[in-house]
């Protein structure tokens, strides 16, 4: 659900400002199980990209391995995609981003892909504040290899085999906060009204954005006793704040109740509007975010929404002071120092 009421009735059949129809953002037909949370997230990605008038070829979509990591085939067929190896999407995204700072990078991963085999790369891509959106389709299990518990499975959660998980869960949002990620959100595949604006905001955020999306696995982890089932999440989910995303050109046209809302302006002039349903903390203040999330954990709540944002932190290109031209567009004359220089280099070795 969007606060920006469209003036026309069937927006999806209308081209957006860059001339694309919604179907131009779709992918091939999904081969996931009917009802899989991941498909809803794909749909939200399609919606978000359409809404923010993104030209599909300006986005690169990347993933690891897993049911979740298959989804980039199911959205944005007009974008280049890279389904890499298990747990290593962040390094691929880092290299890709270094090569061309002007594209938008959307990484999709699973909880197995991120929290187990991919933990090291997840930590370090955050540390580098790579300018990308990183969506974890978090179902607490390894879907593609038939339902083993993952490292985000909650302690005591029961999967299809009926075994309670003895291990403690890794909370990716908590990790990201500890690592000072510049955009941290949690959402639920079943809550499109929250997920779509979060994706829009994440794509516009200049720096690393994590969206940890709880996304039930209907085949292996949607039973009673699972804390990642549709029923459980619906019951324990807490919306932090109603999120909306306002692209730069629309910023003036919106009317909010100023007392109840808060704005965060992004790099490109777009804004995130947070209507405070539960305004107990300041999402631009890390300490208060950490406190809020810890309290939620203690109360057994699943806190969703935008949890923390820092739109000031320089991204990796900023840290490395790379030139404005994308590196993949530099020409031979920019790159090769030439023969005269080489002669003086030779001389230094005599």
């Amino acid at each position: 659900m969007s606060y920006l009421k469209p003036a026309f009735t069937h927006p999806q059949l209308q081209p957006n400002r860059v001339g694309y129809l919604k179907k131009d953002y779709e992918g091939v037909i999904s081969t996931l199980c009917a009802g899989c949370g991941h498909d809803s997230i794909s749909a939200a990605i399609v919606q978000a990209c359409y809404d923010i008038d993104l030209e599909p070829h300006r986005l690169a979509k990347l993933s690891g391995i897993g049911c979740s990591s298959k989804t980039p085939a199911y959205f944005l067929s007009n974008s280049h995609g890279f389904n890499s190896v298990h747990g290593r999407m962040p390094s691929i995204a880092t290299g890709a981003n270094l090569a061309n700072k002007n594209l938008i990078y959307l990484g999709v991963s699973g909880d197995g892909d991120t929290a187990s085999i991919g933990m090291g790369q997840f930590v370090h891509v955050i540390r580098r504040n790579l300018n990308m959106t990183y969506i974890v389709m978090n179902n607490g299990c390894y879907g593609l290899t038939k339902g083993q518990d993952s490292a985000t499975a909650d302690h005591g959660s029961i999967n299809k085999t009926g075994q309670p998980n003895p291990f403690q869960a890794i909370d990716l949002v908590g990790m990201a906060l500890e690592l000072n990620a510049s955009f941290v959100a949690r959402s639920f595949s079943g809550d499109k009204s929250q997920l779509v604006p979060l994706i829009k905001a994440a794509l516009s955020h200049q720096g690393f954005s994590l969206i940890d999306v709880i996304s039930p696995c209907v085949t292996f982890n949607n039973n009673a006793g699972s804390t990642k089932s549709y029923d459980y999440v619906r019951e324990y989910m807490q919306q932090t704040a109603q999120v909306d995303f306002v692209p730069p050109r629309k910023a003036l046209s919106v009317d909010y109740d100023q007392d109840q809302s808060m704005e965060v302006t992004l790099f490109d002039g777009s804004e995130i509007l947070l209507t405070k349903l539960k305004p107990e903390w300041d999402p631009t203040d890390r300490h208060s975010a950490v406190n809020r999330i810890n309290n939620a954990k203690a109360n057994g709540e699943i806190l969703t929404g935008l949890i923390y944002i820092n739109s000031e932190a320089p991204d990796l290109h900023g840290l490395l002071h790379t030139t404005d031209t994308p590196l993949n567009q530099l020409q031979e004359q920019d790159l090769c120092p030439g023969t005269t220089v080489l002669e003086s280099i030779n001389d230094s070795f005599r």
Partner: protein
Amino acid sequence: MSTGVRVNDFVIRFSNVNGSGSASANSMFAKALFRMGLPISPKNIFPSNIQGLPTWYEIRVSEKGYLGRREGIDLLIGVNPQTLSEDIASISPGGYFVYDNSKPLYESDIRSDIHYIGIPMMRLSMKHFKKARLQQLFKNIIYVGALAVLLDVDMDVLYGIVDDRFKKKPKLIPSNYEALDIGAQYIRQNYETPLNIRVEKRDLTDGYILVDGNTATALGLLYGGASVAAWYPITPSTSIAKTFESYAKVHRHDKKTGKSNVAIVQAEDELAAIGMVIGASWNGARSFTATSGAGVSLMSEFIGLAYFAEIPVTLINVQRGGPSTGMPTRTQQADLISSMYASHGDTKHVILLPSTPTECFHYAAQCLDLADRLQTVVMMLSDLDIGMNDHFTPAFEWDEDRKYDRGKVLSAQDLDRIETFGRYLDVDGDGIPYRTIPGTHPTKGSYFTRGTSHDEYAKYTEKGDIYVNNVDRLLLKWETAKTLVPKPIFYQNELTSDHGMIFFGSTTYATLEAIDVLQEEVIHIDSMRICAIPFNQEVLSFIDEHKLIFVIEQNRDGQMRSILINELNVDPQKLVSVLNYDGTPITATAIYEQIAAQILVAESIA
């Protein structure tokens, strides 16, 4: 005891403690010899440690240009008390031991068959310099001055090196001069000079430089246009990234904006490093990583992805002693099989094999071209000996007209022109498909890259025949690679012997010397240096035209021999291994002896 005067043909060795600043003094002396116009070959023998352990530096001077390691030390400068006895024992009869006689030697360290040249290095240094740190450092310069006089090195050459070195800190020049003079003076006053081993000026360094292979590699990558580098520290490859970075600071600096035309990332590990390279290459930037064996092992899975998804990767493997952590500061050529066949499934990778820093420079640049052209993993296998030791090597050259070969990349205009784009279509019949870079065209050319089996349009498939066509095309590409990689080098105008010798990389100098000795003392042997895998036709012909071939390599298992047999279907009986794998560079003598023995045995049977 005297063995007659030996001019421009000897080995001197410095015995030091690491972290004590001797490296800089020793290399100053090596440079002086170079500037005397002489071919030299310095080698650093150092521990896997930062400070306090024994380290040696050896310089072979050879007017004939024999630059391999040679056993037998003619003069040893021993300033490490820990190793004094073994150092003295290591000197060849008739040789010289130069030492700090501030402390007396033990009786048991007195040999009657060598000369002792005592210099009160530390005492002299303390007399002339105040600060403890300087006393330590200048002690080293003092022995350089002393050596100069002993061996008849022109002092002006040394002064010149000091001038160059401290161009930016001229205040330090006088004290360095002084230290040199102290040593020189002490010798002049106390010993008869020059020694029987000595140098004379020659004119043999024209067109040559003295540089290590890693520096050369870094420069090759810089000239070759790498704009994204991702790496993880590991001896002996670390200095490639570091040197690349320091040259890039100057030569990839955009003067207008002050920004950088390169991105260099110290990754969190080797898996991430190669992942970044794959990402960057996929996205159209030239990119490389440099590592050593352990790093390649960790990269194995990703190497298979790049092979199968056909993404350019330039990977520099500076080999060290294996297996496992092995001998991190020793040299071997023992990663051939594991690098070439890295990753599960049917895979093989292109390998370039430089033998000098000059070739490191050219091949590193060529790796980037080949990776783009072949859309696959191209590895350069150098080693610790080439990479970390200075070498007497031809100066770097770059053809002004040379253009980067970016391979088959479709532009927006190309895409507008062509009807169907199939990422893995073999349009040209050479096994190499066309690719597009993300963002090129608003509606055409996007495709989905994957490590799973795919059809010609990059779509996922589990169909056996499509899979087979695809992997067979990769074999065709391998055939194409044979026409693109550097050809072997031959060391004769025509083949005249039944015997051949095959070698590659850092064994080259020693082998060339051994060929000369064999020629003089036993037999002429034809020789070929392999510069790349896959082997081109010339390699096969050479093998076909000989009855018995010696394959010289620095590993236990005769890995190059195996690869030759496998790739070329050669009869194994024809290929005889000549091996050295103790971590030190092979010597001409070792090669000579192994080959001579084989030939004599064969002859005695025949």
